[in-house]
């Protein structure tokens, strides 16, 4: 999921989406969370984690509301612990896997 040919300036403000957090969040949660639906505490937008704007070229990952840019989620992975802040999300509805 890499991309090429961007200057540092272009890359500075560039973001990925919540799909990019699937791996790091899957280390913490027993299920996939990218399909989980939440509401932004700031503007009320409702949608799945997958559509958040994720900035990872940082000391940690910051996921922002695609509508109002408020910080919804922060994830920092240290050597022996992961910090997860979800206070930007009203609540998270996490689908449990359907038997296939």
């Amino acid at each position, binding site marked *: *999921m890499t*991309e090429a040919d961007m200057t540092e300036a272009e890359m500075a403000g560039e973001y*990925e989406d919540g799909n990019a957090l*699937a791996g790091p969040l899957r280390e913490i949660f027993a299920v996939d969370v990218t399909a989980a639906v939440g509401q932004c505490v700031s503007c009320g937008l409702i949608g799945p984690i997958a559509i958040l704007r994720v900035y*990872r070229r940082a000391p940690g990952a910051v996921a922002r509301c695609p509508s109002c840019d408020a910080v919804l989620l922060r994830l920092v992975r240290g050597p022996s612990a992961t910090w997860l802040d979800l206070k930007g999300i009203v609540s998270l509805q996490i689908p449990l896997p359907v038997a296939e």
Partner: protein
Amino acid sequence: MARAAVPGRLSAGRRLEWHVGQLADYRDETPTARTLVLDVPDWPGHLAGQHVDVRLTAPDGYSTERSYSLAAPADDGRLQLTVQRVPDGEVSPYLTGVFSAGNPLEIRGPVGGWFVWRPAEPGPVLLVAGGSGIVPLMAMIRTRRAANSQARFRLVYSVRTPGDLYYATELGHPPPGDDGVDVSYVFTRATPEDWPVPPRRIQVDDLHAEGFSAHVQPACFVCGPTAFVEVVANMLVGLGYDPSRVKTERFGPTGG
């Protein structure tokens, strides 16, 4: 004869761990993009659209990770990833050049549960790919084929030049089982000879087609660079496609 695909399940309840895979084979899709075929023991299977994270570690302990979409359904513990070599990249020159048969690679996954297509879904399905965004969408086409699905699929594939096409032969001369998969191309910098239109960016007219219009509510999957995905998603919503049926995956500036 194709093996039956292992039906994927979103693995639940098990800790996600780093597997160690080995390079079994590779295929160059273009002069700068290579498909890696990896053997991963104990692979739990995966769904079309999911990706993996890979981790590379230098002898002094320095390590870095990248994410790559799975390019095909699981086949007996064999995975396929297609990696684009980024000039001055840190990881892609290694994976497309140095990484050789038998070498190990740490892989975590499969991950991603939103941008997925399951064969049980009846279709129709509209796929829109920008550049290397074709990879997870190709996994969907290949999974459809392996599952003998009859779902109508339409792929709109935007690339800069014909030389940038991945899976060119497979898309150009589809195997049996791909009846019901329509493919159209958009070339943004240079077209094949005798192409009816000059190079241009994707337009609204490229998106809708017989059997895939907004009122049949196809499942839409759009993948590629952020700017491409935003433009296409906006076009689809503007055409009346249900936003909740338009799923997007953006490839971002992880650095190559």
